[in-house]
């Protein structure tokens, strides 16, 4: 398979604006890729999107979009869809008028615009919302309309600024799945900015970690999270026992997930490619393979024992490497040592799937 074509290239981008900074950011986004930029509040994520959208002009550096240097082009000549964190739906228009806006300013007749709006609304499942006033929409509905509005102009690139952060937990999950689904259906290129590793792991083909205006690490989410290249990256991607796998069988909601070196049982309705994570506190270590209600029982060998006050951290190689936290008391009790064979037990209901 040949390397996909580069759609967006950022070359040494720098910008100061209010209290925010972008420092010498270089990045390549491939055509068709879903790229997640993850970083804490104040890292400059929003400013980065606004530079790409053309809302601000960089102090230095170039932006190459689809082979064209757009650094000096105003937003209206870039064809980049932008969904800000607060959605910014036009409050004086209906949902449908919002979606049609980009088409109408492009000179589409009302009839032509309605046709495109109808088509995208069908595909995004928001047909029943079109006549509603924006102020009557829920957060999740507003997010869908904002997505539809940005997608209606068939942008080269979709920029999503913390698209899930303003939503409650339930809607957040729903919209996350929605993003996954419409992305599969429509196949757009997107840059999605977030502070939540779940979004990065679940949605991102690749991700970048941003901190203090700089890009610290770029790679596949699973690689970045399992192999953070610095303490800073580790501190906010710090998720243990994160694995990428594939659902290969199920009984009801109990799914069997192949994670390369091992099989993990978890409760999920999802199929296909998934990410799974197990909290190190939730894994029980035994010396014998005992029959318990825990669906997961993996044989492994202790590679490393280190202090994690008030607990002790074990690295256990069990096909894949697990981190397990146990009490000091347990280490002595079971006489745990590096090189010792152990069994890891954890419940299917303690495995997070996303």
């Amino acid at each position: 398979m040949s390397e996909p074509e580069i759609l967006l290239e950022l070359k040494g981008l720098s910008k100061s604006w209010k209290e925010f900074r972008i420092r010498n950011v270089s990045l390549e986004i491939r055509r068709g890729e879903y790229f997640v930029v993850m970083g804490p509040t104040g890292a400059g994520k929003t400013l980065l999107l606004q530079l790409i959208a053309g809302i601000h002009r960089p102090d230095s550096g170039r932006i190459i979009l689809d082979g064209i240097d757009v650094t000096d082009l105003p937003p209206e000549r870039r064809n980049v869809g932008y969904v800000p964190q607060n959605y910014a739906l036009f409050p004086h228009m209906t949902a449908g008028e919002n979606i049609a806006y980009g088409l109408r300013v492009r000179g589409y007749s009302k009839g032509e615009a309605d046709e495109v709006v109808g088509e995208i609304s069908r595909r995004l499942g928001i047909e029943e919302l079109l006549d509603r006033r924006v102020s009557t929409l829920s957060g999740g509905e507003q997010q869908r309309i904002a997505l539809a509005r940005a997608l209606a102009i068939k942008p080269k690139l979709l920029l999503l600024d913390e698209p899930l952060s303003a939503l409650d937990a339930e809607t957040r999950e729903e919209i996350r799945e929605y993003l996954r689904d419409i992305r599969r259906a429509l196949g757009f290129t997107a840059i999605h900015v977030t502070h939540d590793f779940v979004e990065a792991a679940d949605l991102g083909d690749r991700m970048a970690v941003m901190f203090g205006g700089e890009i610290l690490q770029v790679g596949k989410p699973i690689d970045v999270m399992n192999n953070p290249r610095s303490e800073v990256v580790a501190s906010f991607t710090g998720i243990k026992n994160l694995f990428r796998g594939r659902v290969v069988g199920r009984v009801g909601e109990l799914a069997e997930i192949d994670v390369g070196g091992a099989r993990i049982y978890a409760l999920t309705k999802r199929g296909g490619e998934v990410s799974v994570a197990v909290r190190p506190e939730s894994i029980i270590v035994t010396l014998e393979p005992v029959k318990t209600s825990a669906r997961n029982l993996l044989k492994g060998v202790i590679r490393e024992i280190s202090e994690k006050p008030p607990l002790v951290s074990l690295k256990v190689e069990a096909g894949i490497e697990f981190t397990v936290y146990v009490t000091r008391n347990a280490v002595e009790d079971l006489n745990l040592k590096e090189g010792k064979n152990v069994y890891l037990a954890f419940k299917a209901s303690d495995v997070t799937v996303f």
Partner: protein
Amino acid sequence: MRKIEGLFLTFSAVGSVAILILLVPMILAPLMTDPTQLAEALMDSEISRALSTTFAGASLATLLALIFGVPLAYVMARKDFAFKGLLESLLNIPLTIPHSVAGILVLLAYHSRSSIGSILSNLGIVIEDTLWGIVLAMFFVSSPILISSARAGFSMIDENLEHVARTLGASHYKTFLTVTLPLSLKAIASGAVLTWARAVSEVGALLIVAPYPKSIALLVIERFEAFGLSSAIPITVILLAMSLAIVLILNCVLGR
């Protein structure tokens, strides 16, 4: 009974003095009006001429304030520049200066023998005792109201709305026309109504710059001085009714 309402009772009593002083005149005037006199006033050609002069002047002044003031307000709402604070302060001087002084300032700068005025004369614009003078004096004392109201309106709009419109392909102008203006219409409209009312209310600057053609506020003074208090009552009641209408329109515009 508990005493919690004590302060409100006292304050209401004290405050009702202010209400009385302000409302009694508004209530007495209509009561003292002779209906036949009122009917005559409505027929009086001098009154209707003065009214149309005033309304024409105030409407033109408001129009000019809209044309020149709204773009200024937008720039001031969105851009930072040197001495912006000083400019803001200077633009508010016409609202705090004695009205006759405002008239002197305008006449001094724009009378037909002044350097600017002579240029204007060549263009056919003379301000002394013309409608142009009325418009200019009214613009000077009232346009700052519209500028600050429009500016406040623009400042309240989420800039992300403009950003998104641009990314969707709208030019900056188109964005202004289709997003910014519709969303600040209330602020601009209420500012325009207040500007218009302020222009109509002007006396001092008009006495200096353009006592003729006679505006309605000056006609009230003329009638009062020539024929006494009772002769001014019918015009007063007509204009009082108009002010009430304006205030009620404003309440509607602001959606309270």
